[in-house]
């Protein structure tokens, strides 16, 4: 167990933004919420899942809704803990720890907030290893953990428990409807499971990974080192193992449309060095990168778009004509590349007519 220092929060936020692969929302506000708890004398600790007994209860915490709403309708601060306590009451049992569902984007901060408020450690693992647009897209469900019951809470203190049995897709649809009714943003607690199940179904070490990514980018900047080479080295020591810059160039076109409540679109990037073109398709997060028509990286491998000079992560909303970027790919950990996992968040789950091939094989 290791206590997170207040000074580490900005690094975690930067790393989480990178793992957001273009989506997931800005962790800035979440970081302010956690810092507020630290200013009140509360702290939060990261826990390796191996430190918990098999039968310990872990309840993951997250936010659901539109990032654009979240920057306007700020939280009252109790939503996440209210949803968490609601699920505990429903289960008739107190949790021993919380953890993220999604380590990418703003959802990286929610378990830190809950942990600080309720005095619970946060398990250093998550169910996405990145950001994904829908609730059912995580490894917990893939390996047999049900998203139900799901407890939610809004800013008026509205709360409730949703239960769709073992169908995580129906749960996503129902929870999405509730979220819109409550103003477009809610806090949720779900996937309550034993520590043994966390060990079996979660991607380990992802919160500390966010911290290390943020620190790596900051130190590269401070010491004038190549941030991309430093990132590649960093990922070698993790479950992701392989990461590499795949393309550098200028954005020459961005086309967007909204369908089914998602921001979809395509960005075209022209190479700095030759005539090749990278076409990047996104649905809130980056889904597939094709170089001269040939797939170079595809979901669930992580496609990040970074500022070509500073390696600062760029969100899909901020993609615009003229930006100079480096597309940096990260192989998804093996637990996210099994046939069961690919059925839930592989290319076809996003309507892409292609099979998954790892980025290290597409080089």
């Amino acid at each position, binding site marked *: 167990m290791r206590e997170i220092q207040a000074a580490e929060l900005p690094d975690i936020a930067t790393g989480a933004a990178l793992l957001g692969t273009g989506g997931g929302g800005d962790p800035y506000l979440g970081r302010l919420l956690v810092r507020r708890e630290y200013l009140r004398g509360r702290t939060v600790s990261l826990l390796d899942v191996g430190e918990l007994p098999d039968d310990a209860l872990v309840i993951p915490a997250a936010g659901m809704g539109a990032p654009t709403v979240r*920057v306007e*309708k700020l939280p*009252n601060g109790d939503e996440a803990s209210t949803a968490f306590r609601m699920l505990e009451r429903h289960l008739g049992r107190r949790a021993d720890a919380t953890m993220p569902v999604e380590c990418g984007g703003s959802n990286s901060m929610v378990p830190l907030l809950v942990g600080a408020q309720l005095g619970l450690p946060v398990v250093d693992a998550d169910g996405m290893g990145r950001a994904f647009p829908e609730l059912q897209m995580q490894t917990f469900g893939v390996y047999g953990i049900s998203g139900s019951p799901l407890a939610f809470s809004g800013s*008026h203190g509205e709360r409730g428990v949703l239960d769709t049995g073992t169908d995580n897709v129906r749960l996503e649809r129902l929870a999405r409807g509730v*979220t819109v009714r409550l103003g477009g943003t809610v806090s949720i607690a779900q996937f309550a499971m034993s520590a043994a199940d966390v060990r079996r179904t979660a991607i380990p070490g992802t919160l500390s990974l966010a911290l290390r990514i943020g620190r790596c980018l900051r130190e590269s900047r401070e010491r004038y080192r190549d941030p991309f080479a430093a990132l590649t080295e960093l990922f070698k020591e993790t479950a992701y193992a392989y990461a590499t810059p795949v393309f550098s160039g200028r954005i020459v076109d961005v086309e967007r449309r909204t369908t089914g409540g998602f*921001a979809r679109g395509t960005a075209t990037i022209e190479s700095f060095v030759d005539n090749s073109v990278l076409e990047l398709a996104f649905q809130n997060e980056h889904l597939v990168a094709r170089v001269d028509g040939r797939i170079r990286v595809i979901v669930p491998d992580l496609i990040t778009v970074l500022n070509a000079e500073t390696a600062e992560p760029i969100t899909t909303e901020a993609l615009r*004509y*003229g930006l100079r970027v480096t597309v940096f790919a990260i192989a998804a950990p093996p637990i996210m590349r099994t046939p069961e996992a690919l059925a839930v968040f592989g290319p076809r789950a996003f309507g892409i007519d292609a099979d998954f091939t790892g980025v290290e094989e597409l080089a």
Partner: protein
Amino acid sequence: MSLRIGIDVGGTHTDAIVMDGDRVVATVKCLTTEDVTTGIVAALRVLREQSEVDPKDVRAVMIGTTHFINALVEANRLAPTAALRFGLPATAALPPMVDWPDSLVTAVGGRSYLCHGGVEFDGQDIADLDEDEIRRAAHDMLSHGVRSVAVSSVFSPVSAEHELRAAELLAAEAPELDVSLSHEIGRLGLLQRENATIINAALREMAAQIVDGLAAAVHGAGITAPLYLSQNDGTLMEVDYARRYPVATFASGPTNSMRGAAFLSGLTDCAVVDVGGTTTDVGVLRHGFPREAATEVVVAGVRTNFRMPDVLSIGLGGGSLVHGTGAADVAVGPDSVGYRLTDRALVFGGDTLTATDIAVAAGILDIGERGRVRHLAKDFVAAVLADIETKVARTVDRMRSSRERPPVVVVGGGGILVPDTLEGAGTVHRTEHFAVANAIGAAIAQVGGEVDRIYPIEPGRREAVLDAAKQEAVDRAVAGGADPGRVRIVDIDEIPIAYLPGNATRVRVKAVGDLVLGTDSTDGVA
């Protein structure tokens, strides 16, 4: 005759120019005085002597000033201010000024009041307004010596009803308070919009004094034409508006400089490269206006979403240090001798090799003692100039906003370092009147109107929604004093919003038009 006077009040110099239509008639440069007014009076007097312009023929006076941003950065002359936010029961966890530097919170005497209200993304009330809550807050403000209040409300760019009602109640309960409303100042993003509104509120008293001083100086010179201040985005605001919204004039300096330089070159779409002593600043003009920064702007440690020009600065200028010993390892900047150029550069008898020394050695500049740089090898000098060219070209390239290679306007004291051709750029232009480009930028400013809102766009309704947004932007420009027959849309931006039903789309539209100039000085638009 359509005579206009443009004035730029900088930290060191006050510049003034007279323009007749598109022609610059006269220019002057005076020292800025501490009271601002004396410097302007002096500049106007010299201008009149030079140009023999009859003050009665002047149709408009446009002023750009950096005073407000300096006051904030120095935390100087700020009014005791309160933030009144409508959002409860939401938003309580992140109260106003939550991420401000403590010293600035203290400097504005920052008090916060959270009240029930605000709306959801679709315009429905988050909570009803509690009018007694507002009255209690007003009385508490007065009892604590607050003189200016910033009102913000969740999703006020969607519906400003609660901010407007609060303003009415404050006017009734505490008429002595200055009131600033967030929906009139910023865009989506509550904290950033609120930050800008609080800064605005804190500057209100100072704005009133400065504006009175400006008006007195201009009227004292016998000019009765309406007075305008230039805004961050290169458009104008009427002087009475500036009393209420000083924050909108924050970044007018770089904007006026870019627009002035482009105007002198006769270009409306170009990159402007301003090479100073320490840095080179590159901005891009589209349809005659600077491209705005897409990201947040941090001013005095506070995150805001002002409409600021997108400027990229690199450490390269006349005072830049030259590193390396031969053609292979040469590098210019980013460090610089700064204002000590005349002590430290070789040609001035110093011991430091600077970019200026290289320019003298290459024979493109003739200052100081050329003999002191004669020892520099020719291929070394050429390599340094090539490094400068590469750095400038790369910066221009990074700022390019279309496939076309933009023409480049080079200005500033170090502009001589930039060659006549730049890789990846179009033709290179230079201007002579650059010394007063800021004042010219102010004088040629137009009137703008902007809309930034989330719209539900039903299938097949996109055109109708965009047309409505465009019309509203045009109406706002006309309300601000633009000639209704000469307003055009200069920017449209549509961003679909994820996770909301009804194809919610954020639409930003900006319109600008020429100012209506009165037929004589008594019927201006002010």
